[in-house]
């Protein structure tokens, strides 16, 4: 197995773990974390393909990862703020019990 293949497999595994968490957990915060994990899996792909790709001097993978991390940070901040606002309304972070559309 080549290093690149190992990285890609690891990234696929991370993505699957994140996906599993996102669709199975009830706690909204952990669902958000699952989404972060999937983003991280993508980042790992970018870095691995930059490292073992044909043009490492172009820095594309690194740039994409940096921007992705920034977007993920913004997403986490807004997401957690949304969860707080929802908690204030529903008094729970259990997604199965946030089942009303009426405010």
């Amino acid at each position, binding site marked *: *197995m*080549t*290093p*690149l293949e*190992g*990285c*890609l*497999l*690891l990234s*696929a*595994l*991370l*993505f*699957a*773990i*994140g*996906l*599993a*968490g996102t*669709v*199975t957990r*009830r*706690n909204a*915060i*952990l669902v958000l*974390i699952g989404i972060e*994990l999937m983003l*991280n899996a993508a*980042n*790992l792909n970018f*870095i*691995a393909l930059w*490292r*073992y790709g044909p043009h490492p*001097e172009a*820095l594309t*993978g*690194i*740039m994409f*990862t*940096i*921007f992705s*991390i920034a*977007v*993920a*940070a*913004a*997403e*986490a*901040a807004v997401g*957690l*703020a*949304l969860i*707080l*606002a929802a*908690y*204030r309304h529903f008094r*729970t972070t*259990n*997604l199965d019990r946030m089942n009303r559309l009426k405010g």
Partner: protein
Amino acid sequence: MTATFLILAAITVAGTAAAMGLRNAVHCVLALTAGFAGLAGLYLYLGAQFVGFTQIMVYVGAVAILAVFAVMMTHNPGEPEEIFSRFWVWGAVIAGAVFLTLARAIRLAFAPADATPATPAPSTTVQQIGDALMHRYVLPLEIIGLLLTAALIGAVIIAMDPKDDPTLEEDAE
């Protein structure tokens, strides 16, 4: 496939799996930081020093702390202790299927013969990254800056308790 890679991969997978599987939400977040640290180690192993340190700074220093705060602010002791959704079997099956598909695709993409020779890690200095950010990627950088500012203000406004702000009193009810 060196021992370093395997150790780091093991830390990452163990940390993230624990983060998705543990019962206590704070434990989940702490396990997640271990996973993120392992991932940062992988970035360092792959020669992306700047990204690795940024990963630690952003995920361990900021996102994990935010998540921990959110867990503690939304803690409801009276809630029934059910951590997984009713349809968790389906979720696990879907995630497993996704992994198997991806893994199969990756295995097929690499013919056993074409083992790429291990290239030396490309030397990237922070200077190069800075130059790239300021020349080729200056527009994305500006947009990211705008996005972060908007996210900051938006997060503050969303998380603000309407009861604390008299000007939002009408919206509260």
